[in-house]
């Protein structure tokens, strides 16, 4: 196992982690702060990707498309909030799960009706399409480096918004006790729409970032959303810092598992068996991690303090 | 009267991060007495009760119930040894009926909860004592309501009914009168008075009328430490207590 490969895999893991954070941060916002379990978060990831692909076709510029698709995704998020989600805040989590599962079905079907079953590819601009030569002889796709940068910037911005601003405080206040927040003059309805739209933007952004790599496709959000939930849980619900740490952790573990697990397994079993069981086991790793974390810290790595 | 100690607390301490809520408290509660703990807001009274009830573990110190150290036992085990608490902020099972809530308390005392087959809600051994407890706090009229559909004051009554129904030896009462109207408060005082001698009570309360009407002895907790203790008269006369807590109330 050479050092160059390990370094490359670390970068790959980081990139996956950042992407997961983009998704998970929106979830943790909506889920931790408004106590709303939004399974359909992954659908917004998909919507972001499709809008971006469509707009890239229309405008011919990926960057411009992202710039336009972000507010468009926010609008979709706001619409979802206004039509469905807002009636459910006071219900229990089960109702959330059920309704947002319904939303997933709707979104998947709608996207298929609009864009057909085949995916939508996005053409990267030439400057983003190459590779960068990093110190240590490492060659890494430019675009993946860009994802890392964008994700880190968003993480910082989000932290400041939620933890440091009055808007953030009011959001959290409204989350814990909407009736009381209303009685203090806080327009929770609008705030929640805002937060939901913000969450949608983060999810959409993640979708836009991944689309040039894997292309936009139906149901693309339905599996990764589970991983994003794992991130939120491992980090501790509602904790942006926790989501960040957990996202990187899981990104790295997943990548490392995919890269080196078969080698490790070959020490213990036949090469044939190792090759076929490695993918399943590496997919299992993040769940093992989650169970292990929860066994020792039942509220995740950064639990909220309660009395 | 045999001045037998039912509960002995020795050098109990609990801090939360930087805040030391209970700071080396020692006290003795004798069997059959009403022992009040008063003190300013944030003095550590609720924390003390939670320590005694076993909801949180102490950093240090011993809690002897009938001579047995229970400081490391979980809450449910202590409850089984005859210790029951009421909550300052009402804590009931909201989606169950009022009667069912009390039924649970009776069931807890009864102890035989691993019974899978026979219906509990029609078991007279459970229902009768539960109804009696509701009667006692004059909440019988609401027995069939869901516990989240009664008013704040009624919640407080239910809270007491559950504590009573558990038939504990030692009641830990955290502001039982909070939120009760004058009338209900007076009736509750009467109820507690009637239990005097039969049960031992540790009472935390800010309503001095109640405290002075019921308490045999009073400990004053300030900043997590016992600042004064003695008979109601002695405490009432204590200048320091007056300055830190009572103000002109006791005059």
């Amino acid at each position: 196992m050479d050092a160059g490969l390990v370094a490359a895999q670390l970068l790959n893991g980081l990139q996956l982690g950042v992407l997961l954070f983009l998704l998970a941060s929106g979830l943790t916002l909506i889920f931790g702060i408004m106590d709303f379990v939004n399974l359909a978060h992954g659908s917004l990831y998909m919507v972001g990707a499709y809008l971006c692909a469509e707009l890239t076709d229309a405008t011919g510029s990926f960057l411009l498309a992202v710039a336009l698709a972000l507010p468009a995704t926010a609008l979709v998020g706001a619409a979802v909030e206004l039509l469905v989600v807002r009636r459910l805040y006071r219900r229990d989590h089960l109702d959330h799960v059920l309704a947002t599962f319904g939303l997933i079905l709707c979104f998947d079907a709608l996207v298929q009706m609009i864009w057909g079953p085949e995916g939508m590819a996005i053409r990267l601009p030439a400057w983003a399409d190459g590779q960068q030569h990093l110190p240590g002889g490492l060659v890494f796709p430019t675009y993946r480096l860009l994802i890392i940068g964008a994700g880190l910037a968003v993480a910082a911005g989000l932290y400041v918004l939620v933890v440091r601003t009055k808007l953030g405080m009011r959001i959290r206040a409204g989350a814990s006790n909407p009736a009381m927040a209303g009685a203090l003059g806080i327009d929770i309805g609008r705030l929640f729409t805002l937060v939901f739209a913000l969450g949608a933007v983060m999810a959409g952004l993640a979708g836009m970032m991944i689309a040039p790599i894997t292309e936009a496709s139906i149901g693309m959000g339905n599996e990764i959303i589970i991983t994003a939930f794992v991130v939120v849980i491992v980090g501790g619900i509602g904790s942006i810092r926790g989501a960040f740490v957990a996202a990187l952790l899981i990104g790295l573990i997943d990548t490392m598992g995919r890269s080196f697990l078969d080698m490790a397994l070959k020490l213990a079993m036949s090469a044939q068996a190792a090759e076929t069981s490695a993918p399943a086991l590496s997919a299992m790793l993040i769940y093992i991690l989650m169970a292990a974390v929860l066994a020792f810290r039942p509220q995740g790595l950064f639990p909220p303090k309660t009395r | 009267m045999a001045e037998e100690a039912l509960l002995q607390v020795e050098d109990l301490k609990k801090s939360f991060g930087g805040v030391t809520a209970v700071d080396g408290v020692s006290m003795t509660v004798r069997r059959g007495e009403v022992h009040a703990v008063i003190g300013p807001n944030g003095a550590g009274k609720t924390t003390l009760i939670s320590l005694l009830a076993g909801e949180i573990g102490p950093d240090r110190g011993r809690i002897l119930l009938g001579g047995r150290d229970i400081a490391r036992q979980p809450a449910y085990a202590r409850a089984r040894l005859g210790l029951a608490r009421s909550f300052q902020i009402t804590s009931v099972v909201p989606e169950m009926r009022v009667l069912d809530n009390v039924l649970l308390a009776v069931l807890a005392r009864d102890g035989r909860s691993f019974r899978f087959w026979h219906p509990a809600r029609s078991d007279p051994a459970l229902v009768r004592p539960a109804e009696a407890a509701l009667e006692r706090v004059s909440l019988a009229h609401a027995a069939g309501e869901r516990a989240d559909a009664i008013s704040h004051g009624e919640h407080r009554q239910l809270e007491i009914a559950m504590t009573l129904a558990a038939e504990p030896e030692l009641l830990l009462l955290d502001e039982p009168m909070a939120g009760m109207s004058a009338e209900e408060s007076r009736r509750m005082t009467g109820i507690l008075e009637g239990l005097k001698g039969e049960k031992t009570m540790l009472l935390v309360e800010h309503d001095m009328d109640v405290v002075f009407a019921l308490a045999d002895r009073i400990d004053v907790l300030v900043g997590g430490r016992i600042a004064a203790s003695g008979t109601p008269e002695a405490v009432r006369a204590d200048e320091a207590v007056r300055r830190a807590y009572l103000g002109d109330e006791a005059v």
Partner: protein
Amino acid sequence: MSRRVGWLLLALLAAGPPLALAAGQPFYVDIMTRLVCLAAAATSLNFILGHGGMISFGHAAYIGIGAYAVGIPAYYGLHDGWLHLLLAVCCSALFALATGVIALRTRGVYFIMITMAFAQMVFFAIVSIEEYGGDDGLVIDIRSEFPLLDLEDGLTLYYVCFALLLGTLYLVHRLMRSRFGMVIEGAKGNERRMAALGFAFYRHRLAAYTLAGALCGLSGAMLGNFTNFISPEMMDWTRSGELIFMVVLGGAGALFGPLIGAAAFLLLEELLSGWTVYWQLPFGVLLILVVLFARGGLAGLLEGRRG
């Protein structure tokens, strides 16, 4: 009202299959067999979820374990039905016990996720064992063999499954009203209070969780027998989700809720998917509408409770 609908459904299920056969519609017997098995599984879930507030998002694992408890012995040529059932119950109960010990330390959404994690581990474990077909699943050529009963006969198989459903319903009914059930229900509503009253409800929960797992394992064994084909897919998280939907759709906590939910779910799926490939759209919309406007699921709707 929901009781009456429940009884009506049971009556229909009791009399339906011979009628369907007489009418030359053997496929309806298939649908009903599937319905009955899933309803039994959902009823077992309802006990811990609706009644005890333990939202297990990994309940399908027990279906899988039960099914493989039939499939793996059959793969080795062991077809004794009692052996299969014993294995199904024991393995499911053991798995529930082992995972419950850890999972029940967590609360709320953490519990949802950790149960899912454990189920995913079984899922990937089976996927990684190539001997039993891995991802591709395993065909069961011969169904469990019982003295006097020939499960190869569709009608016999059906009535065995139906008896299982009846048994599960009755058991859960008794359990819910017993002292044990009251403790479970109380702990769902207010853990702190229950502990203060002196209940070591962790043990009650563990017992309930194990029991529900074992019951579900039985339905899994029957389902495996019915489909003649088992695959890890049966215990995928989406399947656990579907079980939850059946429970919530029907009405969590209501005895007949899961039965009504399972019936509605399968019926809708069958009707709508026959109608259009975009069947997920109306299905999703219906789900959302049910959540929004029928508090307490269909059973709640039948009771006249509105959202």
